[in-house]
């Protein structure tokens, strides 16, 4: 092997050998700490000659006799250039790079220095994601990047977030960005399987120039997660992190009725006569019950993380073990995770190395049901009446006992005790994920890297749902002769990818640098599910199906998809001043129609570091760059075989049937985004005040949409490419170092992003497409609310009034009178964050607020349902302000007169603005000074306390204004459209400790 190495190096360096006739040596140290810096790149400017510093920060390099310039670079440090002159020893101190212009940013299939960047990429340092008590990496991105809206789907432990990069580009296909970890595509259900402590950094690719190289999957942006590899560890280190804390539901800004209030209300509305109210009032069997207290609890969170990392001459490594346990705020809600990671790289020879990134994780998720009835505890807390106790009580108020001596749960008026169900109908999901790759890379000549990566993403899901024998639900849905129902799901998802890239970075003429990338990628996925249900269990302790008296159902399914692509990119850089990049990708997808099998996506971008120009040579200007990009990207349909017309199978009388299941569309293809974006990065006064401003236009054509068809055809819709949406917006990010000194620093941070969108056309004849509460209509914003307008209360008789289509007031509601409410949509028109980071010696305080607004939410749960018009909804508990209804002629500013026969109508009466400012995160930490650390022989100790969602400014909305989804089981999962009792968001506090050995 040595021979090869020698041959190689001889070839590469022979050209320079003649000139190298003396050596320069020295030590590189950190200017701040004085510590030696290993791994610093030392380069003789204008040549390919280079070397890295050893563990003690020493280097020795051959230089021409007439000297030249040495360039020292290290991640996170400012570049240093030193004229050699006649010196033979050059010691260098490197300063921390505040603006991180030399920071290397991970891009698609490569990386680039921030100063050279021409596209819109936001980066999030792994450090910013750690010590926040949230399981999913998607949720951790909230408020971290302008233009990237992140909203929790709901507050359940381990829940996913909605992520919208530069607005919404799709109606039926996904609006979620492509997530890639170490080159492997993740599915959203895996976001909570990744240990945030393992993350080095995250790049969020926003514009086409950045995303286009991911082609047909990239139109919603790309999130690239890079895990730690040990290369940044100056010396081998062991880190232990611990935190624990508590969570609780964010309190409502309204009160629910107590027993006396509810009884009075029922009598007033006519749901109950006074005699029966009086009977309940005096009954010891009906004590005043606060169902929030009964069904909710204080949640808890606890995590441990232990990691080992280092960087040797021939290898680098990062190993970690982590646990995360969160108990949700309801019984039956829990998320726990164990993770392990091994990232290693070995140099086989000087030009050949191989390595791997591998994580294996195991997580357990106990979920409460996300449905719109009292089988969901978060509906039950609002619905159960305060005069109904948790357990059935006798006339003396003592609990009645069953034959086992256990108290009997009260099914209540709803006929179902969720308290019992949470214990007797447990649902648990266990996930095993193995996500990793092995790679081989060769650098046969300077600047050329050939890399082949084989990755696998394996996920095993095991779900168990047990309706225990004797439980109330079993009584409803079970077989009395064979009590108990158990369902197990076992799903295996195997995704394989094979990525080959060739990258050549060379400088044909001094000052001109060209970087060429070419590659291919094959991704295949195979998804198998299986399910088995049985009934007839001997007792609740037996849960496996071999104990059941009868297997009642079982099936398996299998699906596949594949993507085969070629891509290339050329970047050109002139004197670090002018930059241009062009990229292209050709994607073939198994999901596209026979006539549209391949898509080609392209992008180009340019940048200009103006502050390097002589005409802008002002001292105060430390950075000024303009960039622009234009290009395309795509979005594949969620459905795997959507272009085909199918007959599927079923059974009738236990014999096989075949039935039409899907309409054919041979022309079905990706949604295509055409984007352009311009931006400015600036910094003044030694970058004390810095920021960037971006403007984007994102045009989505060939929108994938289930076009409704006449139901008389026997179909409801067909997936087609039918429309065009445009999103535009401005993103501003600013930072101001008010105080910058060795001991005391204070930085103000803030960002704002705007988004405006419009449906440009719907190719189905421009016809409006109405969904549950919203519509798509040419010229309107995407998902504009489409509702009957509420016209207040008739002061004469208390009737609820509406506007008909023509704007006339009527007392009779008709769905036909729904109109598009211009400008009112579930998507915020502005959002961002602000806060500050301050530190004094070892003490640091970081405060971050998140805000958004301009959006509307159809507030079923906290407004229409709990301020009902009487009817049956009022049999459930109501808000105290439900008493504010019309009582006599002349009453104004009141709710309509409720009554037993007055239904609740869908109208914009329940549509509320949901602007808010939320104190997302406060973190106070103290790091022990170096003097003490040296005595106790540790590299670092930090203690911290932090709080999440501690305060909210909510001027308009009833309930929590941070609305993710409405209800998963009701299919209302459009971001921020509707409230329908999904798991509420929580606030909490944790304390923790980080030790580095």
């Amino acid at each position, binding site marked *: 092997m040595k021979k090869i190495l020698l041959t190689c190096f001889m070839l590469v360096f022979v050209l320079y050998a003649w000139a190298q006739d003396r050596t320069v040596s020295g030590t590189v140290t950190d200017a701040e700490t004085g510590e030696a810096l290993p791994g610093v790149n030392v380069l003789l400017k204008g040549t390919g000659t280079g070397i890295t510093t050893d563990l003690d920060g020493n280097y020795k390099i051959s230089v021409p006799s007439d000297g030249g310039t040495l360039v020292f670079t290290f991640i996170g440090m400012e570049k240093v250039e030193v004229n050699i002159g006649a010196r033979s020893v050059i010691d260098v101190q490197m300063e921390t790079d505040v603006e991180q212009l030399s920071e290397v940013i991970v891009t698609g299939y490569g990386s680039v220095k921030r100063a050279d960047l021409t596209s819109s990429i936001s980066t999030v340092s792994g450090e910013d994601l750690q010590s926040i008590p949230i399981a999913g990496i998607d949720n951790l991105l909230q408020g971290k990047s302008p233009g990237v809206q992140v909203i929790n789907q709901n507050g359940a432990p381990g829940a996913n977030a909605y992520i919208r990069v530069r607005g919404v580009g799709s109606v039926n296909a996904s609006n979620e960005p492509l997530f890639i970890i170490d080159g492997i595509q993740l599915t959203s259900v895996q976001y909570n399987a990744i240990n945030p402590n393992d993350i080095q950094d995250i790049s969020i690719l926003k514009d086409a120039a950045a995303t286009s190289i991911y082609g047909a999957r990239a139109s919603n942006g790309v999130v690239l997660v890079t895990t730690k590899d040990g290369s940044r560890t100056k010396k081998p280190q062991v880190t232990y992190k611990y935190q624990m804390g508590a969570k609780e539901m964010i309190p409502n800004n309204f009160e629910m009725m107590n027993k006396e209030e509810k009884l009075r209300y029922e009598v007033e509305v006519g749901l109950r006569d006074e005699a029966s109210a009086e009977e309940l009032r005096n009954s010891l069997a009906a004590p005043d019950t606060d169902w929030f207290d009964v069904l909710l609890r204080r949640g808890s969170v606890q995590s441990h993380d232990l990691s080992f990392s280092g960087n040797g001459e021939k290898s680098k490594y990062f190993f970690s073990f982590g646990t995360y346990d969160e108990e949700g705020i309801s019984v039956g809600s829990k998320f726990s995770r164990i993770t392990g990671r091994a990232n290693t790289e070995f140099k086989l020879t000087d030009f050949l190395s191989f390595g791997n990134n591998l994580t294996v994780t195991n997580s357990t998720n106990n979920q409460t049901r996300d449905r719109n009835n009292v089988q969901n505890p978060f509906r039950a807390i609002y619905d159960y009446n305060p005069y109904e106790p948790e357990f059935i009580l006798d006339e003396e108020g003592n609990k009645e006992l069953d034959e086992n001596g256990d108290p009997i749960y009260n099914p209540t008026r709803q006929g179902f005790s969720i308290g019992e169900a949470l214990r007797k109908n447990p649902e648990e999901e266990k996930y095993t994920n193995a996500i990793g790759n092995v790679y081989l890379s060769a650098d046969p000549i300077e600047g050329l890297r050939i890399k082949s990566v084989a990755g696998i993403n394996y996920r095993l899901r095991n779900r168990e749902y047990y309706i225990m024998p004797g439980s109330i639900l079993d009584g409803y849905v079970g077989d009395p002769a064979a009590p108990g129902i158990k369902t197990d799901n076992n799903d295996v998802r195997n995704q394989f990818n094979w990525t080959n890239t060739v990258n050549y970075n060379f400088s044909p003429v001094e000052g001109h640098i060209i970087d060429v990338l070419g590659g291919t990628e094959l991704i295949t996925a195979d998804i198998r599910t299986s399910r088995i249900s049985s009934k007839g269990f001997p007792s609740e302790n037996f849960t496996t199906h071999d104990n059941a008296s009868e297997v009642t159902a079982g099936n398996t399914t299998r699906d596949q998809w594949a993507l085969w692509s070629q891509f290339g990119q050329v970047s050109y850089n002139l004197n670090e001043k002018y930059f241009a990049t062009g990229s292209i990708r050709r994607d073939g997808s198994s999901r596209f129609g026979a006539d549209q099998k391949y898509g080609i996506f392209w992008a180009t971008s340019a940048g200009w570091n103006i502050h390097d120009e002589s005409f802008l040579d002002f001292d105060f200007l430390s950075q000024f760059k303009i960039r622009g990009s234009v290009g395309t990207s795509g979005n594949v349909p969620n459905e795997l075989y959507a272009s085909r017309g199918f007959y599927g199978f079923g059974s*009738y009388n236990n014999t096989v049937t075949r039935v039409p299941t899907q309409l054919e569309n041979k022309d079905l293809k990706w949604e295509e985004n055409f984007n352009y974006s311009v931006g400015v990065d600036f910094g003044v006064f030694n970058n004390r005040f810095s920021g960037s401003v971006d403007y984007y236009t994102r045009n989505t054509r060939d929108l994938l949409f289930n076009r409704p068809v006449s139901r008389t055809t026997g179909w409801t819709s067909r997936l087609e490419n039918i429309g065009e949406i445009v999103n535009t917006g401005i993103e501003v990010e600013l930072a101001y170092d008010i105080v910058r000194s060795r001991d005391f620093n204070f930085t103000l941070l803030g960002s704002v992003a705007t988004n405006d969108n419009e449906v440009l056309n719907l190719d189905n004849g421009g016809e409006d497409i109405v969904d549950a509460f919203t519509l798509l209509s040419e010229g309107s914003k995407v998902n504009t609310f489409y509702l009957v307008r509420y016209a207040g209360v008739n002061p004469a008789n208390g009737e609820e009034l509406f506007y008909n289509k023509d704007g006339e007031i009527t007392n009779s509601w008709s769905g036909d009178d729904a109109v598009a409410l211009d400008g009112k949509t579930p998507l915020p028109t502005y959002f961002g964050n602000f806060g500050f980071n301050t530190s004094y010696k070892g003490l640091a305080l970081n405060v971050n607020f998140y805000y958004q607004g301009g959006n509307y939410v159809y507030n079923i749960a906290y407004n229409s349902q709990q301020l009902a018009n009487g009817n049956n909804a009022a049999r459930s508990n109501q808000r105290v302000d439900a008493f504010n209804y019309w009582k006599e002629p002349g009453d104004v500013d009141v709710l309509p007169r409720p009554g037993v026969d007055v239904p609740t109508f869908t109208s914009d009466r329940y549509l509320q603005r949901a602007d808010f400012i939320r104190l997302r995160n406060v973190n106070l930490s103290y790091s022990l000074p170096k003097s003490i650390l040296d005595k106790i022989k540790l590299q670092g100790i930090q203690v911290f306390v932090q709080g999440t969602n501690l305060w909210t400014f909510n001027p308009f909305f009833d309930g929590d204004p941070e609305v993710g989804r409405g209800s998963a089981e009701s299919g209302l999962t459009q971001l921020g459209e509707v409230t329908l009792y999904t798991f509420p968001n929580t606030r909490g506090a944790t304390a923790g400790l980080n030790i580095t050995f």
Partner: protein
Amino acid sequence: MRKIIYIIGLFSAFTFTACDEELNLEPFDALDTSTAFNTNSDFNQAMRGVYRSLLDGNYYGGEFYLLPDVISDNLILSSEGRTSYSGYYLFQQNGELAWLGFFNAAYSTILRTNYIIENIDNLEDGEFKNNILGQALAIRSMAHFDLGRVYSTPPQLAGGGDLGMVYVTETNAGAKPARIGVAEYFDLIEADFTRALGLINAENGTGFLNKAAVHGLMARFYLYTGQDQDAISSADNAISAAATSVATFDEFPDVWDDLTEAGVLFKAINTNLDQVRIGVVYNQAGPDGVRDEYVPDFGFFQEFGADDIRSTWFDQGPFAGNTYNHIIKYLERPGSNQAIVDAKILRMGEVFLTKAEAHANLDQDGAALTALDVVRSERYDGFVSGGEAGNALDEAIALERRLELAFEGHRFFDLKRKNLPIERTAAGDEADGGGVVPPSNALTLPANSPLWQMPIPQTELNANENMQPNPSNN
């Protein structure tokens, strides 16, 4: 150096390996529509797929069984229920409360029949082909008839401008059809039934239509459309072709537990695998008793005498401290989870009562009484015929029909075709008539109300600009 070249060569070989064939993936649970209809077995499977569609929870698998009784004087809402379908019960139908699920289900059934009919010539001529085509035509006709009963005026009551529904005979998913006139619509239904009759086998086994069942459906059709003489002939044909007669007094309870096929001319079979909880629309039995959605109208309940075998459809029991008359007709059968029973779509009891009513309408009282007593003699313990005639006979037939076909999705249509109002009893939901009384505006629905024709679902009006709404209630 050579090794380096090898390495580069090897990488290049990988890189330029084409993987295009990886993109041709077939699903594991479906086949292309163009290949779905070739063999006899293909058609058998597709035909069973049509029958399976009848079990849709919005069709004979539940809702279509329930709503014609909910929107009638047979049922009232239980105050302890989940208030399912209460909008229909309270006569609040509108474009968004317009039986959309049924609308979809019926046209989906029609689509499945049309696929078979369009491809039928892939079969060789002969008995097999005829029998498949006959079944497909008969069910296509039945589904259109059901749609017509819900959304259109009965032809004998219709004015010149009244509309039938869309009669679909092709599988064009891009179609945006308009409705046709009532008379034309019902004529097409009759024509399909008639054509089916000439093709279908005399026997196809339980769960499938046969010649007798088609005669029976036609008797239903003719009675509904006021064609009494045809109703009589169809009923007679059904009676002579059927392998069963009215279930006997002793057999009758077993019919509801699916232990016998006596008296059942056509049913959709609901297996434990299907898990279609037909009866869940009435109530759910839980550890605390049976929780009703709907209970019988108290006045109607009292018509079921103790000597009437049909009184076994009820069970008085407590729930939440009160006693209710639970309808347990569909509550259970041995070996299945609760509420999973076969959907009895056509029974001989109906055929005889149709015959009786048609005879009576034509003043053929003797024949009418005979047909009526075929049913009555098997329903009452120690039955002695009342020997009614004239108005008394008409009333006896109407009462017997209401009793015999209670909770099987007939009452609304029987009132509708006879142009009679809904008049609920002003009594409560509890077993003794106490409890919550229907609100006053839900006690009656006049015969001339536009709500007798269900509004066209708004969803359909949105997607199909040619679809005409029903006047004054859409």
